[in-house]
């Protein structure tokens, strides 16, 4: 009975139910929850990048009046991580990055906790830090993790060693033979990118308490089940002893996809017997952000006389910072980005996540896809220049289409990128790609393609049908601002049950109520939680229609759910109100509820060509075509964006207005990454941008309206044919701007961000 409803019923511009309180200042985010009864905690963070701790004495802090608890590594023996359990929550004997927590203090006020943190005695014997990828990979480099061989490996199969935390590779076909061919043109490029800070307006924040022998953690997270797991792991308590609930989240963008502050607050809550609030200051948030990582990308391609890419080799170095974290997983995604846009005869791709003595990096909206797309599309334009082929014609000829194989040998379904390219160019024909504007500035235009994935995996949902004919959806999904929990999920459930979305109550995440879920990220919520919700609705429909069929003396297959009623199909008014059916059900079978589940399809790849990968193939690819025009001032290097256009593969658009909001916001975040947002690390290993004065996110005056076109109908496993629409808008922004600036200036743009200084230097010939 699944999908026995009309999918178009789920399509609407439903407004957000949380907007009113957000606009009135009434919404209580985690940072707003702590009342006078709560203790305030502060982390004492290391002020050196690499050191041995020779003395740690917390007794002066503990002796202060109003200090309730202090915790150190002795309170949290466990290690956590993704792929490798390499991460303690406190430095014990070794400090690995500037800002690493050494102790945490709970006191009656924040000011007192800060004073107490200053009273803790810590002595360091400093060690030479490795602060860059080059330093980490030098033959005689000091090891960030001298004991790397002793860590538990949570996902076997990857090469590791020294400062290489993880190595993923793809070897598909014989690239050596292809590069040795006499009839190919070989094009090489190397690119480098800096970090990007998420700057969610709500910093990472948590309030923990210890009740009836269990931890209750209220936190600003995207992944409540991850928090539950990691807290239990590092505290070495059973997972069932941890409950996680999530208030409204004030922005995530991937930063909150990992556990962060929660275990510290949990320990202090147990020690003090009080509720404990821990909130990163903006300075801490800037200096310890799990940034989109800095990276270096080298790509080499062999092109035959017809313009086919017969082979590609690439090496990507990702800086994971002091601990492996999300970068270990993301090594997998290099292959699907660098070898997922275009048909390749053979591919050899090596990705290394490298330890340095710098703050750990993490996940950020489309992750390494953003810079790999930048590198690949600049490389693609360099190929076009080398072989003398029009960049649009080259892309149109080579993009992945129906039946083509991807990085790891999976077969792609459907022609998607090519018709998307055509749609862009039909709407905005190319007159020129470079030139000079009447005001003297350099003009450039570029069109790029991008391939990313929807991160699927386990989700669970329960739907309770209530006596009044409303439904309650219980999942571990979190509303982080993208609108998924406010719009697409109630729209999906309502369409399945024939009720209005306003009559779908969406329970906020509570791991005591909802089943396991991977978290809100990777464009997965509408798809994974949506599919689980549909499965739960299918059970509800079946139970409901069985009762209704008996009452209406017809077969269940003849019935439809619409406008809060059960009707005989094609005969409006013939049936009865849902409430009446539910009342009958209560007398015969009891209240109606359904549970549903979803997980990854496990799309097959070519056996043996991927090593160290977390996923063999991408279950749901998602594509984007971007186009922009820029004007570059030759003297200042300042770049003005004249137009920006997006054609985005959405599968099916459930809420066009909400998707528009994601595209406008995602593109602008990408503009910041491409042009102004720069993170640098000083000689002391500290991130130098500590606030909004030095880290420049786009302001209203820096942006423009993004033109968009939603491409519907591409194959998708998602419910109603949907794909996630919130993550991918950022994917090719840096790529498109870089290609346009390269076209405008005639210079080989190879580094991000393209700050005015860097662009001016490029034009003047002082840099690459």
């Amino acid at each position: 009975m699944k999908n026995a409803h009309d999918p178009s019923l789920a399509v609407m511009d439903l407004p957000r139910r949380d907007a009113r309180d957000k606009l009135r200042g009434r919404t209580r985010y985690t940072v707003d929850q702590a009342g006078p009864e709560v203790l305030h905690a502060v982390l004492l963070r290391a002020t050196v990048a690499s050191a041995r701790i020779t003395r740690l004495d917390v007794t002066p802090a503990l002796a202060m009046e109003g200090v309730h608890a202090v915790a150190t590594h002795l309170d949290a023996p466990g290690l956590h991580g993704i792929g490798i359990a390499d991460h303690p929550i406190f430095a014990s004997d070794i400090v690995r990055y500037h800002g690493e927590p050494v102790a945490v203090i709970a006191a009656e006020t924040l000011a007192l906790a800060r004073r107490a943190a200053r009273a803790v005695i810590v002595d360091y014997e400093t060690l030479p830090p490795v602060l860059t990828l080059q330093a980490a990979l030098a033959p005689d480099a000091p090891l960030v993790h001298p004991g790397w061989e002793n860590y538990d490996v949570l996902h076997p199969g990857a090469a590791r060693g020294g400062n290489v935390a993880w190595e993923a590779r793809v070897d598909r076909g014989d690239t050596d033979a292809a590069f040795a061919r006499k009839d190919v043109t070989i094009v090489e490029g190397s690119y480098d990118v800096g970090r990007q800070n998420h700057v969610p307006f709500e910093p990472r924040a948590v309030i923990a308490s210890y009740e009836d022998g269990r931890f209750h953690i209220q936190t600003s997270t995207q992944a409540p089940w991850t928090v539950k797991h990691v807290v239990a792991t590092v505290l070495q308590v059973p997972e069932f002893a941890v409950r996680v609930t999530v208030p409204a989240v004030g922005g995530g963008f991937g930063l909150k996809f990992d556990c962060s502050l929660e275990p510290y607050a949990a320990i202090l809550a147990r020690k003090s017997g009080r509720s404990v609030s821990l909130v990163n200051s903006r300075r801490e948030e800037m200096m310890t952000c799990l940034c989109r990582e800095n990276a270096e990308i080298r790509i080499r391609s062999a092109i035959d006389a017809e313009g086919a890419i017969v082979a590609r080799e690439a090496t990507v170095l990702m800086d994971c910072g002091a601990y492996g974290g999300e970068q270990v997983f993301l090594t997998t995604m290099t292959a699907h980005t660098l070898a997922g846009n275009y048909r390749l005869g053979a591919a050899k791709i090596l990705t290394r996540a490298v330890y340095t003595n710098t703050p750990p990096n993490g996940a950020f909206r489309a992750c390494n896809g953003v810079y790999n797309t930048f590198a690949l599309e600049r490389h693609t334009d360099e190929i076009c220049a080398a072989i003398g082929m029009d960049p649009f014609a080259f892309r149109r000829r080579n993009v992945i289409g129906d039946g083509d194989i991807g990085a790891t040998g999976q077969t792609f379904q459907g022609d998607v990128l090519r018709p998307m390219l055509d749609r862009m160019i039909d709407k905005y024909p190319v007159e020129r790609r470079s030139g000079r504007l009447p005001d003297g500035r350099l003009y450039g235009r570029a069109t790029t393609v991008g391939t990313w994935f929807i991160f699927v995996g386990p989700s669970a949902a329960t739907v309770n049908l209530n006596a009044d004919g409303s439904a309650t959806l219980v999942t571990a999904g979190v509303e982080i601002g993208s609108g998924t929990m406010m719009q697409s999920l109630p729209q999906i459930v309502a369409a399945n049950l024939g009720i209005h979305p306003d009559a779908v109550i969406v329970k906020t995440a509570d791991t005591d109520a909802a089943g396991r879920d991977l978290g809100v990220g990777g464009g997965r919520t509408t798809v994974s939680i949506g599919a689980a919700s549909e499965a739960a609705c299918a059970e509800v429909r079946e139970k409901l229609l069985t009762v209704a069929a008996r009452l209406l003396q017809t077969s269940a297959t003849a019935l439809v759910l619409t406008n809060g009623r059960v009707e005989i199909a094609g005969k409006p008014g013939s049936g009865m109100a849902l409430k009446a059916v539910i009342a009958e059900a209560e007398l015969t079978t009891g209240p109606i509820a359904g549970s549903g589940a979803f997980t990854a399809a496990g799309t097959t790849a070519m056996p043996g060509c991927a090593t160290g990968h977390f996923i063999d193939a991408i279950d749901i690819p998602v594509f984007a075509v971007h186009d922009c025009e820029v004007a570059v001032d030759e003297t200042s290097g300042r770049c003005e964006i004249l137009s920006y256009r997006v054609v985005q593969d959405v599968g099916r658009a459930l809420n066009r207005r909400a998707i528009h909001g994601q595209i406008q916001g995602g593109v602008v975040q990408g503009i910041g990454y491409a042009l102004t947002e720069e993170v640098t690390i000083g000689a002391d290993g500290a991130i130098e941008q500590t606030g909004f004065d030095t880290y420049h996110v786009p302001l209203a005056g820096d942006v423009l309206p993004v033109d968009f076109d939603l491409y519907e109908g591409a194959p998708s496993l998602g419910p109603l044919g949907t794909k996630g629409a919130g993550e991918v808008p950022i994917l090719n922004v840096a790529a498109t701007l870089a290609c346009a600036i390269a076209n405008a200036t005639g210079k080989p743009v190879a580094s991000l961000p393209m700050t005015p200084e860097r662009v001016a230097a490029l034009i003047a010939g002082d840099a690459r």
Partner: protein
Amino acid sequence: MTVSFTLNGRARTYAGDPRSSLLEVLRETYRLTGAKDVCGEGFCGACMVQIDGMPTTACLVPVGTLEGADVRSIEGVGTEEQLNPVQQASIDFDVVQCGMCFPGMVMTLTHFLQDNPQPTREDVKSALTGNICRCTGYERIIDAVMSLSLAPKPLTEAQP
């Protein structure tokens, strides 16, 4: 030392440290958490309130300077039944995402529209120089504000 001022139309006397920022006092003493502590340095505008009618970042104002002042925070704008026009347009145009910046945006834009009933898009953008948003990319907020302009509407005007 105490400080007496009006907060959302109600007389208040504050007896704590006069050096505390108005933002701390709103959030901790009065538990009015609509003004957000985001940058703490006056750049982002998430803590914008109106002091004697002027938009002001509450993080930079010591409460001791407010003797006799008329302070209005987001909690004093609009009612459950009747939102103010900027709030209503923000709902009508579906522009809210995470929502952390919107209390400040409403304070700034409400005052701006009083002084500039027929703004251009560029005027609105200039007015938002001190209000940063990380989610929305701004333009749809500008669409919502432009719908409130008293200027004749061009045919191409964005619709909610």
